[in-house]
């Protein structure tokens, strides 16, 4: 039974009911100690069930072994595993482990391969790196945001070219928030995402190797990641789409760069802007994302291009990001070079 499945949460609810029944029944027949134990059981099952549901919503701990403190790289190590392709579309999501010589991080990554990938064995496809929020994991894209069906339907409709989408982990520890930066005293997430992941993708998948064929996207903290990495590596990425992202990392990186070169507001105000295209989307009722999106858009000037997009409601939630996915992917594909045969 998976940690993030509905059956697990339902089992938790069953335990909640059972402990409540037990508590009510034994009260008249037992002493204080057992009553207290039963009461504690009620509280414990409620707390655990609520935590399971919360985890199911964020996918912070995608496996049981993640709970035991195993680093994320131990959780899905092994040979690439093909997940069942969507029966009607032929696309697939593959699970690989990226051994990163530059960052010294070995982390798992999910890879979306479009239906055209096996059909066109000599084509090199454009690439989008899709970054997750905090707390979260690549599984959030797959289980909560339905990325596979969103990509399938945009590609099938011809609004998007067949594209390989990389969903890497951004931290070796679930609750360590890297914001995709190289932490001064911690993991080098930026190096992993901008050097190791591209190098792995170029050698293991048929993808384009030039700037025109690479883009970034991300939701929430992953949205900050997408714009920050695009602005910091303009020779590697042609475009980035941030769904409810921010202009600043909101963490302490350890070298002061969270206030300067890893802060998009500072960067846009103080450094030359690259010829890169950004797509900034937010929900109108998500004040921080809206405020920071408008601020980034106001700071941007040529040659940096900014397109903004708004959904009316949705706050900072999966519903909002699901609504933003199709337009963001369409926009990214229009700003990416085509599959190359």
């Amino acid at each position, binding site marked *: 039974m998976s940690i993030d499945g509905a059956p697990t949460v339902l089992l938790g609810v069953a335990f*909640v*009911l059972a402990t*409540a*029944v037990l*508590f*009510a*029944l034994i*009260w*008249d027949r037992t002493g204080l100690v057992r009553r207290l134990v039963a009461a504690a059981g*009620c509280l414990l099952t*409620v707390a655990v069930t*609520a935590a399971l549901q919360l985890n199911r919503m964020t996918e912070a701990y995608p496996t049981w072994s993640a709970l035991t403190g195993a680093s994320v790289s131990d959780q899905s190590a092994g040979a690439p595993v093909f997940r069942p392709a969507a029966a009607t579309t032929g696309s697939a999501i593959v699970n690989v482990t990226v051994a990163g010589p530059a960052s010294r991080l070995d982390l798992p990554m999910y890879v979306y391969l479009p239906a055209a990938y096996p059909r066109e064995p000599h084509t090199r496809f454009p690439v989008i790196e899709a970054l997750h929020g905090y707390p979260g994991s690549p599984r959030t894209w797959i289980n909560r945001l339905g990325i596979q069906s969103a990509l399938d339907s*945009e590609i099938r*409709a*011809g*609004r*998007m*070219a067949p594209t390989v989408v990389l969903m890497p982990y951004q931290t070796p520890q679930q609750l360590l928030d890297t914001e995709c930066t190289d932490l001064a005293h911690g993991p080098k997430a930026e190096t992993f995402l901008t050097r190791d992941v591209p190098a792995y993708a170029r050698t293991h998948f048929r993808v384009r190797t030039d700037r*025109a064929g690479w883009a970034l996207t991300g939701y929430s903290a992953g949205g900050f990641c997408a714009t920050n990495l695009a602005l910091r590596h303009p020779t590697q990425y042609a475009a980035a789409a941030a769904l409810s992202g921010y202009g600043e990392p909101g963490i302490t990186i350890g070298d002061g760069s969270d206030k300067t070169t890893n802060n998009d507001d500072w960067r846009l105000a103080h450094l030359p802007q690259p010829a890169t*295209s950004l797509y*900034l*989307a*937010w*929900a109108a*009722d*998500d*004040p*921080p994302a*809206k405020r920071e*999106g*408008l601020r980034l*858009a106001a700071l941007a000037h*040529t*040659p940096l*291009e900014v397109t*903004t*997009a*708004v*959904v*009316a*409601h*949705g*706050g*900072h*939630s999966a*519903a*909002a990001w*699901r*609504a*933003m996915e*199709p*337009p963001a992917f*369409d926009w990214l*594909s*229009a*700003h990416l*070079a*085509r*599959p*190359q045969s």
Partner: protein
Amino acid sequence: MSLTGVPLIVVAMVATAVSVAATVLLWSRFGQWRYVTRIAGVLLGEVLIVTGVGLVANRGEQFYPSWEALGGRTGAAAAAVPQATGRLDRTLAAGPVRWQPPDAASWRLSGAPTLEVPRGYRTSRIMTYPVVLELRGRGRTPAPGAVTVTLPATARTTAASLASLPADLARDVRVDAQGWVVVAPAARAALADALLRAEPGRFAGLALVGARRPVRVAAAHLARSWTAAVAWASGQTAAPLTPPVVLPRGRRA
């Protein structure tokens, strides 16, 4: 009542207190039915406590700022962009045609520009295509999967004199607003460079034919032949796509 307001949190807390108090007071009443009221009281209290904690956390983080958001109703007005049509869509023949837009006289060219649509243009009806702009008049090297425009540019042609070209082209054929690639002979490197600088959002790349390093422009692909340059240019453009799904633009309230 607002999902993130204090009143709802107060209601949840009062309800929790009432529920707990009632459960304690009624614990041993109702004879055989007492088990039912006990279980119901415990479960209700648990649900209310979790709800209260959730409301406080949600008020702090604003994950779900409204009931619509909680219900997953985003009111997203995403819609496909209206299908573009070009004035020349019905009349374009295969192969290059003389292009005679109204503003061409101001472009300072040595001859008429030509226009060539890619294979499939006339049957697809709804797809828009990227543009490969060739800054020479002679020769015919169509870019696959792109609209090819040839401009016999002269030394007097400038980025400013060509400012009306994108709008004229978009009126006549279905072309993307961004991602155009310029192919130019070395003699027109300065003009090509000026186009990229003037509209970096529209012009995504530049191939120079016959240029020897160092060239005066920063980011150009250097090609030996015109054919190689156009092939590279075509590969740099986006795929022909059907109209995208778009959301309303953001603006200050």
